[in-house]
């Protein structure tokens, strides 16, 4: 299998570049009103270079909130977020690029596949070209993630691994400028998890985009990550270099 990026001919798409770093700069604050506990403030500042940065921490420490702020699904109270020097959010300058214009690949923990449409339509949802070109792009990525045989099946007809691959293909086919993974492998058994991580690594070898992986599974963090940020109660309390992966 060769899960390398394909040309999706997205308008305004930033093609993965071998020379230009696509770094993500994050500096944000947001109050989190958690259930059954006192509210606390998420206050983080970090940068994500090409490769996988893991945000590691216990449940309720603000990991998913970071991803949602980066994707534009939540608005930080203060701070700024930029990708390759382009501002996505800046509270001082009142800039807030809407989620639909950020081109963030987001793999949700619950996958959030559209239940009423087939796998191929799920994958093609974010592609802006139409007709045969769109069909080709969808077919290519389904082939690369070994799910072409389930193209016409709705999500409730797929296995856990197939659903995971469809969700991953859907997030990657739009040629995201950065990738956000929210505990994406937590529901999979170890063998399947390793397979999908291998697929993702092969893709990232060529895509060279910043990836933020949220997890509380240390093995998953080590398997995929280059660097790990330890988050507690909304603060980064430690940063670790992980064993280097070969895709960056």
């Amino acid at each position, binding site marked *: 299998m060769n899960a390398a990026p394909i040309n999706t001919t997205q308008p305004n798409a930033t093609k993965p570049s071998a020379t230009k770093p696509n770094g993500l700069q994050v500096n944000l604050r947001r109050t989190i009103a958690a259930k059954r506990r006192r509210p606390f403030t998420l206050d983080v500042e970090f940068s994500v270079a090409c490769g996988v940065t893991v945000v590691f921490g216990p449940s309720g420490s603000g990991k998913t909130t970071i991803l949602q702020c980066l994707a*534009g699904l939540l608005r930080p109270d203060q701070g700024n977020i930029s990708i390759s020097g382009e501002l996505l959010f800046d509270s001082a300058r009142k800039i807030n690029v809407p989620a639909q214009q950020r081109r963030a690949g987001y793999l949700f923990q*619950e996958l*959030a596949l*559209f239940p009423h*449409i087939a796998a191929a339509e799920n994958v093609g949802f974010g592609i802006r070209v139409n007709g045969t070109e769109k069909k080709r792009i969808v077919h290519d990525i389904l082939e690369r993630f070994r799910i072409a045989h389930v193209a016409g099946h709705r999500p*409730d007809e797929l296995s856990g691994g197939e659903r995971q691959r469809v969700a991953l293909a859907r997030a990657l086919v739009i040629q995201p400028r950065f990738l956000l993974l929210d505990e994406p492998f937590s529901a999979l058994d170890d063998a399947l998890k390793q397979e999908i991580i291998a697929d993702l690594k092969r893709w990232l070898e060529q895509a060279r985009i910043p990836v933020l992986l949220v997890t509380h599974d240390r093995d998953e963090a080590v398997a995929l990550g280059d660097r790990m940020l330890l988050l507690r109660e909304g603060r980064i309390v430690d940063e670790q270099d992980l064993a280097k992966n070969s895709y960056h």
Partner: protein
Amino acid sequence: MNWPAFVLTARLASLASVILLLVGVPIALWIAFSPRRWKFLAEAVVALPIVLPPTVLGFYLLVAFGRGTFLGRWYERFTGSTLAFSFSGLVVASVLYSLPFAVNPMVAGFRAVDQKLIAAARTLGAGRGKIYRRIVLPLAWPSLVAAMVLSFAHTVGEFGVVLMVGGNIPGATRTLSIDIFDQVQDLNYASANQTALALLVFSFLLLCVVYGLNLRAPFWGSK
């Protein structure tokens, strides 16, 4: 069975239901997804016909349709007839009177759509129109059908508003529910019973459709 009244009621209910679908969807989408804090005012206005005595609504509509108002004069200038005591007036009154029966099920259906799906669509570049068209409306279709069915049934059964706004003109504004009232006034119980029984069975069947659709709804659960 008074067949002219039957045909008129069916025409009225069909037209009102179609108009309510067209008008109700944008209102329900706005109520379901708008972040405006004051949208509760709009919700209260839409729900008013549920708690308002039909005669109150009928009275104000009758006043609004008269020559003393801009609406009444405007309608008469363009059509040459008045809205009051006409079939068109009945349609307008029915749409307003059945508005909550269309909008409320739609709002409930739209709000039940998993927010994660909407978030996923946004990250995939979809704007509001595409999200409504491709995600929300297809997933909430049982609530749209329920809204149509309830609007239709409620229009068929309305009495007070119809009597106030339309009067009781045979062939023009006399609906089945008014016909039953007339038959009872004339002590023609057998005929009244025939019409009432037909409406009873019809209402029961429509409610079976609504509750049957509710059973089918979990089919679209997010995986």
